[in-house]
């Protein structure tokens, strides 16, 4: 069970049950809708920012605990973060999650989101963890 506990840490389960940033109330034009093709789960996400600083990341959707926790942790992580930080953070996140357990997220930069470290060992879960982050990238492009 230790691998399982490592993946489904209390923090992950908590975030998935009581997600942060859940609910789309903004009319920010920076939004995206993404579907995970392997499971059909979806997310709708919007970024509120003033061009310099992210105010909030709001989202709605359904999916597995990993995808929900990841969206929630992303929302927590980016709140009031400089907009310029986002791109490198997404890149680092992607690299770590796709690393098959060889790269860990940096606690200084990712805070609680390092709870997602367990995902990178499970190829089948990478898309779950990435779903919100892909939506975030796409939202900022739009």
């Amino acid at each position, binding site marked *: *069970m230790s691998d399982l506990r490592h993946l489904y840490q209390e923090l992950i*389960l908590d975030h998935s049950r009581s997600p942060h940033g859940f*609910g789309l109330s903004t009319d920010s034009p920076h939004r995206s809708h993404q579907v995970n093709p392997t499971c*059909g789960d979806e997310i709708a996400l919007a970024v509120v920012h003033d061009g310099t600083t992210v105010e909030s990341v709001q989202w709605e959707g359904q999916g597995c605990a990993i995808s929900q926790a990841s969206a929630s942790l992303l929302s927590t992580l980016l709140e009031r973060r400089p907009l310029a930080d986002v791109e490198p953070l997404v890149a680092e996140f992607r690299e770590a999650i796709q690393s098959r357990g060889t790269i860990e997220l940096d606690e200084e930069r990712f805070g609680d989101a390092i709870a997602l470290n367990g995902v990178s060992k499970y190829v089948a879960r990478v898309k779950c963890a990435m779903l919100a982050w892909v939506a975030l990238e796409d939202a900022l492009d739009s």
Partner: protein
Amino acid sequence: MLPNPAQTDFSSDELDAIRAQFPILTERVNGHPLVYLDSGATAQRPQRVLDAERDFVLRRNSAVHRGAHWLAAEATEEFEDARATVARFVGARPEELVWTSNATEGVNLVAQSIAEASLDPAADPRVRLAPGDEIVVTELEHHANLLPWQRLARRTGATLRYLPVSDEGEVEGIDEVIGERTRLVAFSHASNVLGGYSPVERIVARARSVGALTFLDSCQAVPHAPVDFGALGVDFAVFSGHKMLGPTGIGALYGRFELLDALPPYLLGGSMITTVTMDGAEYLPPPQRFEAGTQRISQAIALAEAVRFLDELGMERVAAHGERLGARLAEGLAGIPGVRVLGPGPGAPRIGLASFVLEGVHAHDVGHVLDERGIAIRVGHHCAQPLHRRLGIAASARASTSVYSTHAEIDVFLEGVAEAAEFFGVAGTREVLA
């Protein structure tokens, strides 16, 4: 070949002998013995099926229907014998069985050929559609038996309608939806999500009474029960090799000969023509008309061996085994707090397959916990999104069996589900903190 009237399940000795054909079943996953309960997605291939294919390739491999030499004649004969063997297994004549890559291609083949015929005023009216005509599918179809019909409707201007399913997954509305305008009814023989059978006789009877063709997706029936397309009276049917202990890369389309013969060709190329000029071509009769290019020769030979294996086990007994496993699955799951079992209720026949939802927990998370203990199940929408939407769920978890599955494996699986329920603390409701 003869069905065993006793319809008894396999004895444990018999099961041991069966399992010995499948070395993969002795693999270990995360320190646990593999419990493979994903046979509905793809079944494992017995050694003797691999041996038959290998033997052919190493002794008789050659292009078929094209070569004049000895090897080509031998290969052609083995290839056509394979067709006859598989055809007999499903109650078809050899010339009524077209090889395809998989069931998906079989559905597309018929839909495309009907689309093509619909453009040709000289084509047989039975296989032409026009605006005002209706194609009927059910709400529980696999995407493979839905999307090609959607496209056919778009192309021909016909309307796609569907038979709704009840909360228990029963196909309803047969007499209401299938009517005078219905030209084709496409439906599953057994559902790959619910595990129950469709009312084939009733649908066929109704379709016939209004002059509509029937198309049966028999992917989940052919591997699990004796099937006779001729006796069922369907016009077309499809199934896949890899779900019935045969190889990937091969499946088959059954069609009543006169209907196959009324269809224009599908893929164009070698081995399906008589004459070709720079302007056009003349085509061979079925089944060759639909088999362009070099065929999946060794795979056909392997599939025939899978069929012989199933025949030796006896499809009645295979069905009995599956039904018993299915019942144990459904009952066991129903006994776990927080679990909702989809499909037929207790007592109703089901193949050895059951899908379920663990309240408040996503199917993928359930699957993950089981996977850690070596139990392989399928999670997601199982290529049946409309059915899931109908049942008010995004995803489900599915355990599915084959001839090599045991009651003990079902028990390990049920324990796993119970543990997953505990692990996630089932019925934890989401508090939304925006």
